[in-house]
């Protein structure tokens, strides 16, 4: 039981993931399928974000210097010159514990991908609705079946 409370983030992710996947497969309405797909993708965003959290870690923003002076750029400069030591350098320079920013950056990309997929999906549903007059998969299949029969008749 304690494993659920200690790692509740995974429980949430798994529930969302399964809900989304179930909605995609179980519903016959094209919009509802896209809703399910979005929930499914969102669960992955949460998974990534929770693995980036370091217990007790600050938000990953350099704290000691802020503003126009070059000090804030120094880690970047070092990193650009020699990326291999940059992480070690930044770590030794400050004793602040930061959370891992990388999963956030990754998931920003994944969110954009998700938005693009959803936009294309909705655009397709709009076109399907304009062509078939329905967004129920059963009715579309029936219409296509009819279309096939007529297509072979001539």
């Amino acid at each position, binding site marked *: 039981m304690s494993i659920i409370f200690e790692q509740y983030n995974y429980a949430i992710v798994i529930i969302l993931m399964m809900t989304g996947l179930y909605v995609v497969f179980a519903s016959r309405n094209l919009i509802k399928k896209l809703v399910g797909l979005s929930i499914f993708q969102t669960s992955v965003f949460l998974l990534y974000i929770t693995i980036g959290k370091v217990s007790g870690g600050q938000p990953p*923003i350099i704290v000691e210097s*802020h503003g126009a002076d070059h000090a*804030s750029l120094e880690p*970047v400069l070092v990193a650009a010159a020699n990326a291999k030591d940059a992480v070690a350098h930044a770590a030794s320079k400050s004793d602040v514990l930061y959370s891992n920013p990388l999963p956030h950056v990754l998931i920003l990309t994944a969110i954009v991908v998700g938005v693009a997929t959803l936009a294309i999906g909705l*655009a397709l549903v*709009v076109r399907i609705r304009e062509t078939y007059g329905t967004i129920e998969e059963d009715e579309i299949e029936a219409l296509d079946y009819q279309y096939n029969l007529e297509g072979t008749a001539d």
Partner: protein
Amino acid sequence: MSNPEQQSPDNMQDPHLILRIISKFLIPFIALFAFYVQFHGDFGPGGGFQAGVILAASVILYALIFGLDAAKKAFPPSWIRIGMTIGVLLYGGTGVLAWILGGEFLNYSVLAHDAAHGQHYGILAIELGVLTTVATVMVAIFYAFGSRQPDLQNEDW
């Protein structure tokens, strides 16, 4: 379609008077905040993606309050394709410039006399490209879906 007289905020019969006046105040600030998020992205949380979405949100709010036709006058659809392309070209162009100056693709360090300035300019140019593309694409998606159905009439609220 609602006619311009009905939409004018001067008309006291307008049921959306408060909405219109408040959003007229808010929209410039939303757009300004987008640029804050954009240019503060070097030092804190922020950057082109977020700024682009916020900028697009100001256009979308305008369209929701004043109607799609008014929004299309303020932000013509012809800008969209051009904006998308310019954004991608700004991003890619920075990379190509780095190539021309002898570095690897997107190596900002070669863009200026010292690497720190180069990194600074590079990320600014890149994020501007991202801002342009994201903002125009978001508006494009909104226009594409918004134009499909007739505008909401006042009576539908």
